């Protein structure tokens, strides 16, 4: 990172190779749209290069990176540059979201995976921006509450509450889908 701060583009390329998947995954969970997620990821890495001098060795790099990423996503959504795509749940009318097929051993498992993904995406689009950020960092990036608190400049208690509300909301949506929609999905296969 210190080499990046000195303008070393080769060091930056290496940094990009190591972390771009995490950032893109986070951005995708945030806006629920592949194209927008790539635009956000590009902006985040350019910002990272430009502000590399602000990085202090005392901070964990991943925390610093996601602080930049989360702030950028939250600001862009607040400014109206991006809208969080509302994902329709099964049976609702709406734009289908492009979701990669999960690695599954059978077509019915793949279909089930896509439907679960759609249910989760729909539940995420109903969360507040901060709940979605905390949830994505915890569930998909495996970050500890303490680190998420640093990313969001919040207390650990606030993060615990954000993650609990978000997880419970997603869990209820998944439960409802499993109770109502799963049997037909199985019969289609």
């Amino acid at each position, binding site marked *: 990172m210190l080499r990046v*701060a*000195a*303008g070393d*583009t080769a060091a*930056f*390329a290496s940094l*990009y*190779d190591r972390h*771009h*998947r995490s950032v*893109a*995954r986070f951005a*995708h*969970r945030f806006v629920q749209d*592949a194209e927008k*997620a*790539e635009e956000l*990821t*590009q902006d985040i*890495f*350019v910002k990272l*290069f*430009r502000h590399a*001098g602000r990085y202090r060795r005392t901070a964990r790099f991943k925390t610093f990176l996601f602080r930049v990423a989360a702030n950028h996503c939250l600001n862009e959504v607040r400014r109206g540059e991006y809208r969080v795509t509302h994902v329709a749940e099964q049976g609702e009318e709406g734009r289908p979201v492009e*979701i*990669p*097929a*999960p*690695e599954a051993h059978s077509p019915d498992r793949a279909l089930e*995976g896509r439907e*679960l*993904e759609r249910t*989760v995406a729909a539940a995420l689009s109903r969360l507040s921006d901060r709940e979605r950020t905390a949830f994505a960092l*915890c*569930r*998909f990036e495996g970050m*500890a*509450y303490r680190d998420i608190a640093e990313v969001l400049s919040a207390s650990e208690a606030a993060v*615990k*509450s954000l*993650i*609990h509300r978000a*997880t*419970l909301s*997603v*869990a*209820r949506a*998944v*439960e409802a889908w499993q109770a109502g929609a799963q049997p037909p999905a199985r019969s289609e296969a």
Partner: protein
Amino acid sequence: MSCTVEGDLTAYVDGELSIVEAARVRAHLATCSGCRSTEALLRRTVAELAALPAFEPSVGLRRRVLSEVETLPRPWSERLLHLLRPAVLAPAGVALATVAVVAVVAGQRAQEARAERGAELAVAENYELLTDYEVVGLAPDDLEVVEQLDQLKKEGRP
């Protein structure tokens, strides 16, 4: 649900509670079927979420990011280091030294010229007087004595 530990259930599932808090939640779960059911739902969901496919960005994104970064202005530290390279520094040093030598020599010459011009000016201003006293054999140094002659007489000096 009105249980006081409900807000701690996700943190409990995530292993984010202290030993004391976790023990309190565990004790409550042993007696509350509602919270046990919520805990089971949370555990199941967390496991399912972990199995979801991850978004994979396109290969073109790397090229776009790196080419945008290449067009950005370099940081001042890098520009300074670039200027301090021997290949830039040596010719710049030689040029600077040459300019300094030329400036010193030119300054000295200008000072000498100014001094010469001053002496010539004094001679020109007193040209008439000098030619008069040269006739009687007085040197230019005696001019001041002659000019002050009346004053010296009054003071009684010889």
